């Protein structure tokens, strides 16, 4: 109702000025986002290889050939399965640990809480590339400190152990790095959410004889739910697009067992020079992500509408 009133009062310039103001932003977004998205869609139906790239010849349309090639390739499906599996494991782990740490932060003394926050801030601030390089160094088969420490355990022989020799162990390292790097955002955001849970409510429940689990389930979780949805969706989006960690840990040449959708699309395009095929894979990736995005956008849009 107020919206109509305001529009009537201010008259026609309320249409022109805002479009002028947002014009430059929209032009840039159209030029470097909308156009590339369209171009990518077209490319995914074309055959664009080195020859077309060098000669500048028009890339021939091949219909849905790229999609057929991709979807009928068992390698692609194993990449999809791996990406989904990694996303599920890493998101569940980081959200659970993040929530646990957030709850722990409510329980510890001020000094310990401060130490926890300082440690997490440093981890959070490090660039993803550096985070990955640290993990690569720590798991190095020769000088890695992880091997050294595990070797110290009684009865374990871990000298010169190669973590990336088997995919399962390699993925344990990559997942550890992603979870370690993701915990600070989750724990600190959820902790901020927890401070909004009225302490009186919890105390009253305790006095009435509720145990910790009941209080958590019936009071904390319902209040925290919107925030949990957002941070979980964000984690899904981020981890599904995993690129830097496996790229860095495999020296920019991930073996087939270490490919995710993002690296797979990149390698097909830029190493194999199959730009059409790479585009088709990227299109499929974006489509898979749309589901997760919808949840996030709806939640954010609600917030944007409020003020």
């Amino acid at each position, binding site marked *: 109702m107020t*919206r109509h009133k305001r*529009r009537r009062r201010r008259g026609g310039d*309320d249409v022109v000025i*805002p*479009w002028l103001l*947002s014009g430059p932003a*929209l032009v*840039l*977004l159209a030029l*470097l986002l909308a*156009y*590339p998205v369209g171009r*990518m869609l077209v*490319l995914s139906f074309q055959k664009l290889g080195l020859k077309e790239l060098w000669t500048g010849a028009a890339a021939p349309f091949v219909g849905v050939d790229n999609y057929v090639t991709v979807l009928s390739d068992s390698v692609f499906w194993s990449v999809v399965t791996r990406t989904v599996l990694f996303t599920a494991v890493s998101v569940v782990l980081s959200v659970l640990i993040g929530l646990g740490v957030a709850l722990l932060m*409510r*329980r*510890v*003394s*001020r000094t*310990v809480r401060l130490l926890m926050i*300082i*440690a997490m*801030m440093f*981890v*959070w*601030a*490090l*660039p993803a*590339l*550096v*985070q990955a*390089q*640290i993990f*690569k*160094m720590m798991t190095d088969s*020769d000088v890695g400190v992880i091997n*050294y420490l595990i070797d110290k355990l009684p009865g374990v022989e871990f000298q010169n152990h190669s973590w990336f020799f088997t995919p399962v162990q390699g993925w344990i390292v990559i997942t550890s790095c992603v979870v370690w790097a993701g915990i600070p955002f989750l724990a600190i*955001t959820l902790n*901020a*959410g927890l*401070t909004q849970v009225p*302490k009186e409510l919890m*105390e009253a429940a305790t*006095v009435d004889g509720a145990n910790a689990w009941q209080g958590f389930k019936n009071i904390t979780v319902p*209040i*925290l739910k*919107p925030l949990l949805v*957002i941070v979980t969706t964000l984690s899904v*989006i981020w981890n599904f697009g995993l690129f830097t960690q496996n790229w860095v840990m495999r020296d*920019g040449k991930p073996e087939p067992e270490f490919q995710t959708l*993002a690296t797979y*699309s*990149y390698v097909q395009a830029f190493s194999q020079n199959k730009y059409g095929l*790479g585009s088709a894979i990227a299109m499929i990736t974006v489509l898979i*992500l749309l589901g997760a*995005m919808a949840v996030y*956008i709806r939640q954010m849009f609600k*917030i944007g509408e*409020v*003020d």
Partner: protein
Amino acid sequence: MAVLTSTPPRRRTRKADDGVMTVGRSRIGNLVANAAGLIFAIVMFFPVYWVLITSFKPQTEWSSFTPTFVPHAPTLDNFTSAFNAPLFKQSLINGILVTAMAVIAALIVGFLGALAVARFRFYGRRAIILVVLAVQLIPFISLLIPIFLMLQSWHAVGNTLIGVTLVYTVLILPYTVWMLRGFIAGIPRELDEAAMIDGCTRGQVFWRIVLPLTGPGLVATSVYGFIQAWNEFMIINTLNDPEHQNLMAWLMQNQTSRGTYWGPLMAGAIITSIPVVIFFLAVQRNIASGLTAGAVKG
């Protein structure tokens, strides 16, 4: 301020009353919790500690099979050798230039856009908000193929710092608009209206009221943009040759060509991280809340 809603207001509290429950807590439980918190902090911080001490270890020490947990003979050699490595300084300057230009461009363009969606009610406003939110979630790396082909065909900006700057500007623009929108919406509209009643024009309201009051928001937003642009390496690595790289891409290339030189590599990693860490620590409050703005109250 809307952007800050998920951060609790800072208020002075007595020691016993910092929002922590006091009922039903045993002493032994507190002890266990504190010990767990301490262990968590140590485990979290260990990798950071490890990169720090590695960068100060001489080659004999970082390449030793028996790692030392405190460097025996700390040295700055790794830092000097990183600085003198080929293309390091060039990459450093390139990175600073590209990041600064992208942040300034995104700030100007984004501020105008944010002003439009925060201060005007017009047909298409919802659509603009939706576009800004949606493009934020397109994985940029998936657009690398068309962007690569595009910049290659525009010879003026292909393989230049300008080309990458354009791409980075768009990379950080959506978040810039979204965050500034929150800051502008937090300025009471009554201030604008009062100024207009006093005879200010729309332009004067902007220069004298909205812009100064958005100052802190502009700082926080630009720092976030800086971090994003500074940390990026895949786009610049794909679009440009070694002469036109930033430090991140330099680090990555250095790792692949001489992957076992951990001392200098970690020194390079630290030099690369310092600006990010400093800026990040300065605005971390806004980053967490900006990403999840208003979610709890939502």
